[in-house]
């Protein structure tokens, strides 16, 4: 063994010195055409004039803030603007911009509640869930906080708790939000609260009644039986919520609901959620059409690569190029210690690189933190592909405890069998 280890050491060391510095650097380019487009910036909405105006407004806001960095109102406005842009484009740089706007208060323990709320939002976007909960708890424990701020804190906290799989705590928050304390804020808050409660119920074995409730909330014409019609006037997030529930129930209505959600809410999350559904339906061509041009966002690039794979196969140059770029971005994220891509990296390894074990590793470490249906799905699929169905046992345990169901979780091997049988029995009993 010593001999082997020594020879291995020698081999490794001789090979390690070989690759040079230069190989890791990107090649220099010296463009010669002045009108050559060298970079596409995130697009502003509207025609040329509106785009210019939007840009000018951003610029003016930044300039004003530079002039008066200590003006909280101005700083909060800038931070909220950055978060909104970030949500639309899925760009984590905007989190930094929000943080920069609030720099004078950012690291203060006695920051105003509005600042703590932004801080919590940034933290949870960086998957720092526990610190985010600490901030939100602090906001809600502070007496005299403005009601809208409290309401947003309640909702954000419920959202984080839902991601973590703490359904009871999340539901308690949404019930408070639906209660008399917040009645003064009007029907909008109540709609959010009731939808939140319904969605939580759907994750705990009451998918059918929850679907009906959400349809009713969305003002769908025939709420009792059909959950198919998308509420035309319903907000995008509500249609999205219904779409995701329909997807979990294996209801084909999901497609129309996703499309409706996308119409009023064309953000990266909605685009990718719709793309996932289309991929499951083997409608990859539509995915490419939907997402083309937005590949700057990593999750979009992942779906585009998956669509290419479905259309052309793994060996096709388009698939390979997208896969390689995605890999470089994950490498870069790893360099800076960002581990928030687990769910997507698992899919990248499994579906694009065909490395089931790596996929399983990502899926497991992701499941250790997050318990959303999509997290469950990647874990089940990776474990199955890696011939390690036992690795998904915590997931089946979780679903047994919460009563969660998902039509996409039809796989899972022997470890899933007891759960699936139990679920089938429950269903048989509840169906008259």
């Amino acid at each position, binding site marked *: *063994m010593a*001999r*082997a280890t020594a020879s*291995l050491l020698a*081999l*490794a060391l001789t*090979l390690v010195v070989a690759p*040079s*510095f230069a190989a890791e*650097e*990107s*090649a220099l380019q*010296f*463009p010669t055409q002045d009108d*050559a*487009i*060298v*970079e596409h*910036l995130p697009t502003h909405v509207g025609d*040329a004039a509106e785009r210019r105006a939007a840009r000018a407004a951003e*610029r003016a806001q930044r300039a004003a803030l530079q002039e008066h960095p200590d003006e909280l109102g101005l700083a909060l406005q800038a931070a909220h603007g950055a*978060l909104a842009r970030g*949500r639309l*484009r*899925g760009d*984590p*740089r905007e989190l*930094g*911009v929000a943080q920069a706007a609030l720099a004078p208060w950012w690291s203060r323990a006695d920051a105003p509640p509005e600042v703590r709320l*932004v801080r919590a939002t940034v933290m949870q*976007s960086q998957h720092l869930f526990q610190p985010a909960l600490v901030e939100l708890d602090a906001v809600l424990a502070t007496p005299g906080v403005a009601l*809208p701020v409290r309401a*947003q804190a309640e*909702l954000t906290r419920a*959202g984080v708790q839902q991601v973590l799989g703490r359904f009871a705590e999340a539901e308690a928050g949404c019930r408070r939000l639906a209660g008399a304390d917040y009645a003064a*804020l009007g029907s909008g808050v109540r709609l*959010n609260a009731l939808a939140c409660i319904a969605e939580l119920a759907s994750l705990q074995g009451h998918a059918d009644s929850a679907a009906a409730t959400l349809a009713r909330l969305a003002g769908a014409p025939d709420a009792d039986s059909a959950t198919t019609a998308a509420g035309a006037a319903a907000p995008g997030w509500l249609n999205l919520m219904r779409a*995701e529930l329909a997807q979990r129930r294996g209801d084909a209505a999901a497609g129309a609901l996703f499309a409706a959600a996308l119409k009023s809410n064309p953000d*990266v*999350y909605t685009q990718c959620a719709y793309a996932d559904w289309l991929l*499951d339906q083997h409608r990859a061509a539509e995915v490419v059409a939907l997402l083309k041009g937005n590949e*700057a966002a*990593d*999750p979009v690039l992942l779906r585009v690569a998956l669509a290419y794979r479905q259309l052309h196969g793994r060996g096709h140059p388009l698939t390979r190029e997208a896969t390689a*770029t995605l890999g470089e*971005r994950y*490498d*870069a994220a*790893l*360099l*800076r210690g960002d581990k928030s891509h687990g769910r997507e990296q698992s899919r990248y*390894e499994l579906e694009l690189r*065909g490395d089931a*074990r790596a996929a399983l590793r990502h899926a497991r470490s992701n499941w250790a933190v997050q318990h959303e249906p999509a997290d469950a799905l990647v874990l089940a*699929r990776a474990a*199955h*592909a*890696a*011939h*390690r169905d036992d690795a998904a046992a915590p997931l089946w345990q979780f679903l047994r405890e919460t009563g969660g169901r998902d039509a996409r979780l039809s796989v899972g091997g022997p470890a899933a069998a007891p759960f699936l049988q139990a679920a089938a029995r429950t269903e048989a009993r509840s169906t008259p």
Partner: protein
Amino acid sequence: MIRALALALLMAMAPLAQAHKASDAYLTLRVDGSTVDARIDIALRDLDRDLDLDTDADDQLTWKEVRTRWTDIAALARRDVHLRADGARCTPGVTPAPVPPAEAPALAQHSDGTYAVLRTHWLCTAPVQALSVEYTLFANTDPTHRGIARIARAQATADAPAPQLAVLSPGKGWHRFTLPALPAVATPDAASSTLASAPPAPSTMPATPPPGSVDAAATPPAESAASTFLGFVREGVHHILIGYDHILFLLSLLLPAVWIRSVKPDPRTGLGRARWVPANDLRHALTSVLKVVTAFTVAHSITLALSVLDVVDPPSRWVESVIAASVVLAALNNLWPLVSEARWKLTFAFGLVHGFGFASALKDAGLAKGALAAPLVGFNVGVEIGQLCIVAVVLPLAWSLRGTRTYRGAFAGGSLAIAAVAALWLVQRAFDLSLIAG
């Protein structure tokens, strides 16, 4: 990615998706005597935010829009990146005229778009032993921005270690890097004595640095390198112990080690017929095991290194299928031996393939480019330890039971079972049956 939950009538604020690659700049610092060649790649997107490059506000940048603002871009970098060698500031100077000149505006492509490339030739007062970098780029506009720095001596000698890697957080003061001493340079000052004790291996970044706290000065390189190394050792042990196919492969090869093939003339026909008989000589058994384990180690080390260094990168499905096939053949070889005494040769051949399998696990364990020695060796040491654990459990048991009927039964049944399981894997992996939906 997390779905946005916003109260529409309240602030437009909600959880948002962590999606794009975050903002990074790439610094390459080559130290050559008392000069440092610095290259900094900064994303045009970041520069546009701070400098408003998009003059015509059409959400795209032309070369002209970038080129005409090059002075401002260079000034920004000059303002926010500073170097200090052994305590004394270095000054940005003029490059001795490469072609095209270093001042010429240049671009480079990274995975998330186009970057401006700034090249600066820094002059320090004396040959550089320890280089400190002060980095405040975008500290006031995007505190989540990071500089990914690679630092090394320019001399490409055989014993030059890979570049040191570090993540620079803007506004975190000076990041200090101790460079490996040059063999030819013998400076009798105090710095050289600390350098002599510096580890020859590159100080690698921990696979998961705490956010915003990577400071080469704050973490002693030796310590972080050691803990990184141990991390990879653990990863290696873990990998072999959870990798059922590697275990079954080894098991198939270890089971017959306590036996020898013996040719006994059949009393009826008088013809020789080979069969397994218990070995009497423990040394023989141990040698047999040692050969097998060594062959496996050497073989998988070769391909592991080749694959991690991107010299060879066979498709994973192919690799996984051949690994399954190797288990089938090793198990069948016990039942109908084609290779009995020279099993190590068989092991070597298939060990090559298992190495590719390890590589994908190692790559996944978080391999910083440019610092490969520690992960590679550490992971391999871990694999060896895991392997020895298996040998330590199996061999004494097999030795003590080798003459019993139980062992003969377990041997035949076990080999058959292993072959069957592995054949199933082979089919699944070769035909991609495990991939559902998509």
